[in-house]
C-alpha cells in the first residue's frame, strides 16, 4: 500500500514521493542491473534510464501490481537493450570490463561487495535470456507467469529458460567448488 500511495503522490506532482521511490529501490535495482550485465557502468546507466523514464511517464503510469516487480522488469529490459547496443558496437565484454573491488577506486561512484562480483561472474556464464529469468525469479521473487507477461513470451519459454539456466549453473558452481 505504501508504494501505491507513493505512486499516487508522484502522479500529483510530489517530488518527494519520487525521491522516496528512488531511495527505496535504488540498491535493489543496482544489484539486479550489475548482476545481469556484469558491467558496473552499464548497470548504473540502466538504473538511471529506468528512473528517468519512470519519472517522465508519471501522467500515464498506473500501478496494477507490485512496483518492485515493475521496476525490476524495466531494469532487466533496459539492461538487455544496452547490452545489445554495446554488442553492436563491438565493445569489450570480457572480464576486464569489470573493475570492481571491495576497496574504493578513485572516481568510482559505486562500491560492490565480493558476493555481487561473484554472483555477476557466475551469471555471466549464462545467455542473457536465462540470466534474466533466473534473476527475476530468484531475486525479483516474480512468478513465471508475471515474468512471461513482462518479457512478452510464453510461460513455457520462461520455465524452459529457467530450467536450462539452473542446470548450467549447477555445473558452473560444481566446477567452482572443485577449484
Amino acid at each position, binding site marked *: 500500500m505504501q508504494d501505491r500511495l507513493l505512486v499516487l503522490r508522484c502522479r500529483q506532482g510530489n517530488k518527494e514521493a*519520487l525521491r522516496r521511490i528512488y531511495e527505496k529501490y535504488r*540498491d535493489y535495482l543496482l*544489484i539486479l542491473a*550489475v548482476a545481469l550485465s556484469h558491467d558496473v557502468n552499464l548497470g548504473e546507466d540502466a538504473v538511471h534510464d529506468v528512473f528517468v523514464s519512470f519519472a517522465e511517464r508519471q501522467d500515464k503510469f498506473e500501478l496494477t501490481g507490485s512496483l518492485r516487480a515493475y521496476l525490476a522488469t524495466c531494469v532487466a529490459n533496459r539492461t538487455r537493450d544496452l547490452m545489445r547496443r554495446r554488442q553492436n558496437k563491438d565493445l569489450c565484454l570480457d572480464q576486464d570490463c569489470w573493475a570492481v573491488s571491495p576497496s574504493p577506486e578513485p572516481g568510482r561512484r559505486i562500491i560492490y561487495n565480493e558476493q555481487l562480483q561473484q554472483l555477476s561472474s557466475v551469471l555471466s556464464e549464462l545467455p542473457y535470456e536465462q540470466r534474466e529469468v533466473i534473476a527475476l525469479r530468484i531475486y525479483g521473487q516474480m512468478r513465471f507467469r508475471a515474468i512471461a507477461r513482462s518479457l512478452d513470451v510464453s510461460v513455457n519459454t520462461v520455465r524452459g529458460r529457467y530450467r536450462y539456466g539452473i542446470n548450467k549453473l549447477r555445473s558452473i558452481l560444481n566446477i567452482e567448488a572443485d577449484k
Partner: protein
Amino acid sequence: MRPAKKIKKLFVKSNVTVDSELDDRIMTAALLAFEKHEKTDFAKLQPNIWRTIMKSRITQFATALVIIIAVILGLNIIGGPNKSGRVFASVIQQIRNSRTVTFTTEVQMGQQTVQIENARKEPGLTRTVMPGGLILISDLTQKKAISINHQEKQYTERNLENAPADQTQDFFEHMRTLPGKANEVLTKREMDGRMVQGFRVIEHGIDATFWVDIQTGDLVRVEGQFPNAPNTRIVGKDFKFDVELDDAIFSLTPPDGYTSKEPPKIDRSEVNCQDLINLLRWWATNVEGGVFPPSLEPAEFAKVGSEMKKEGKVSEFGGPKDEKMQQMMKLTRGIQFVMMMKPENDWHYAGDGVELGDADTAICWYRPQGSQTYRVIYGDLSFVKDVAPEDLPE
C-alpha cells in the same frame, strides 16, 4: 547446496555503497523529466458515474431522448452529472490544499467507539488528542514526535527518521491521496440538520464516503471502512479548514516537571504465521479453560478477552509494566496477521472449544498469497503446508 539457493544467497548478501554523485546524477535527470510531464489537471477530473450510467442500454436510450428534448427546448442539462463531479473534486481539492485543518475522528470497533481530536498545520505538523488526555504531536519536517501523558506527567520523544509510512500517514493523509473523482454518487439525505450528498470512493483498499453539504459545498462527514477490518469504521467530522492555529500547540518541547519515558521497543518485522501460533498458544495456556478463543475477529477477540479478564479468568503478564507492554504487543502481532487476510486467502478459523494439544483437529487454515494450496494449523499448533483444497477440513 542447490544452485537456486546458492544464487539466492549471493543475491541476499550482495551489497552496494553508492556515492552521492550517482544519486545526484540520477535524481537530477529524473526530476527534470518529472517536471516536464503534464500533471493531472485537477479541473478536468470528472466522476465516472456518467460512464457507469451509460453502460445500461435502457439509460442510454433514455439519456439520448432526454438530450434530444433538451436540445429542442434549449435547455442545458449536460451540467447535471458534471456539477456533482465538480462538487466532489472541489472537496478533495480543499482537503489537499488546506494549510490547516481541525477535525474529530471517531473510531468504531465493534461496540466500542473512541473519539480523537485532530489538528494539522502545513508543513508537516500534527496534533492528536486521544481519550484519557494522551497527546501526540509530530513534526514531519524535523522528523520528530512527542507523546505527552498528562495523567502520569510523562513524555516520550521519538525520532521519525526511519519511521514506516503507517506512522506518518494518518486518516487525513489517506484522504489527501484519494482521486478527485468518486466511484459512486449516493442519494441526498439529511444529516445534522443539513441536506447532504454522498460520494463514495473505493481506492487503495479503503472504502470511504464523503458527505457534502449541498448548499455550501462544505465537507460534513467522512465515513471510512477498511476491508481487512470489517468491524472497524472510521468517521471524520467537524472539519474546519484553514483556521488559525498557534504553532505553540504543536510544540515538541516537553512540559515542565514531566519525566521522560523510553518508547516501547516495537517489533517491526513482518507478521507471520508464527505470530498467530504464539497468540493461540498464549490464549490456550493463560485463559481459563485451556481451549482456543471462540473467534479471532479482532473486535470479538478483544471483547471476549476483556470479559474474561473482568471475570478473573486470564493470567496476568509477569514482570514490570514495560515488560508487560512488550508481551502484549507481541500478542497483537497475531491479530495483525489475521487482519491481513484478504478474501483470496480464504481464511477459516475453527478453534472455538478445541483444546490445546488436539493434534487431530484443524483450528485454522488459509491460502498464502499466490499459492494454490493451503496452510493448516492443528490443535497442537503444528502446521502443515501445501494442503490441497480437496483435503481441507469441512
